């Protein structure tokens, strides 16, 4: 099921680009998912999920006619596409491609990496050139794929795609103590990817479908120690999801605890939290309320169109 990382971080960014005039393609990477062994490589289930994603983005406010959906397998029907995959592959060493494997959420140099994985970064670069894109958007964990595409583009005289990278949302339990795994040479990015990959814990993230009481329960249990900023997912949700527009916010609070308070910026929120002026309960109650409200159109949409969600439940988790 789609979580708020995809729904809100990606969804909002896509809407920003559409508003600034971009022709936007949402690429449903069915073949890539198969390579990455999603649903055991079952393309039927993978496509059911791709269909469901289209409904999710529509429910999040990206109207069908404002974005173009392209399936990877349709792109791969063109013979020129495979020529591009091969031409990209000729520009890089095997070693280099293997170092890019963490874009699949796999560890670098793992012994059980299938040969199919070699295709993945080369396809991801070829996708960009085949669709004649000017800009490639993704989470920061995808930077290796984009750097590879830019270098290949330069060598092949195909032009360099601009890359736009968004943050990866922390899980509700915060960054794990020791970031386990070998995903990137950069320790900070390694930790970010390790945190993303550790999302197997139950209730560690909010789904776009969650009812207000579920959001509330998950947020209540989230890691948010008083005055601590580092590794605090609640503060991070305020910074990334709420204050991305730099608009002031009215934080609601019971009169008993000082009443409502106007917050001008994320910096002010952080300062008030570190100084103890704002309590974790204040932040939790408000983020819970804000997210419930923002996701209301999604719940409404899927009440009217229950089918894609039922299909997702039927095929089970990948």
């Amino acid at each position, binding site marked *: 099921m789609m979580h708020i990382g995809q729904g809100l971080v*990606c969804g909002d960014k896509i809407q920003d680009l559409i508003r600034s005039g971009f022709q936007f393609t949402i690429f449903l990477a069915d073949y890539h998912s198969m390579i990455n062994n999603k649903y055991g490589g079952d393309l039927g289930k993978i496509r059911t999920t791709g269909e469901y994603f289209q409904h999710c983005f529509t429910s999040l406010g990206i109207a069908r006619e404002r974005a173009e959906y392209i399936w990877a397998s349709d792109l791969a029907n063109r013979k020129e596409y495979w020529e591009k995959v091969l031409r990209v592959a000729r520009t890089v060493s095997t070693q280099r491609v293997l170092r890019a494997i963490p874009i699949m959420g796999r560890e670098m140099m793992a012994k059980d990496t299938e040969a199919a994985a070699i295709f993945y970064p080369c396809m991801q670069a070829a996708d960009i050139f085949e669709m004649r894109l000017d800009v490639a958007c993704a989470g920061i964990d995808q930077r290796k794929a984009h750097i590879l595409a830019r270098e290949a583009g330069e060598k092949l005289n195909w032009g360099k795609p601009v890359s736009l990278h968004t943050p990866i949302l922390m899980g509700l339990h915060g960054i794990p103590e020791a970031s386990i795994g070998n995903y990137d040479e950069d320790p900070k990015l390694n930790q970010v990817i390790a945190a993303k990959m550790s999302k197997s814990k139950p209730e560690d993230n909010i789904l776009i479908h969650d009812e207000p009481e579920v959001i509330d329960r998950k947020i209540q249990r989230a890691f948010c120690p008083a005055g601590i900023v580092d590794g605090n997912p609640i503060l991070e949700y305020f910074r990334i999801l709420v204050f991305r527009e730099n608009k002031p916010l009215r934080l609601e609070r019971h009169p008993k605890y000082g009443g409502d308070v106007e917050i001008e910026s994320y910096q002010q929120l952080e300062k008030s939290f570190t100084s103890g002026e704002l309590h974790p309960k204040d932040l939790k109650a408000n983020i819970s309320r804000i997210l419930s409200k923002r996701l209301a159109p999604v719940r409404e949409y899927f009440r009217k169109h229950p089918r894609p969600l039922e299909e997702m439940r039927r*095929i089970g988790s990948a």
Partner: protein
Amino acid sequence: MDPNERMELTTRGTVEVIQSVELKRLLEEKNDPRAYWGFECSGKKAQAFTE
């Protein structure tokens, strides 16, 4: 919307742009440039390709 406003809207909330100068030039040259976001189709929470 002028190129500066489009630049602001396009880059807000990002952690990295490679490269800003190229994006700026692109927005000056084209009114409707092409962009994409790719998604692996998985119901699992942790996914590659994007988040």
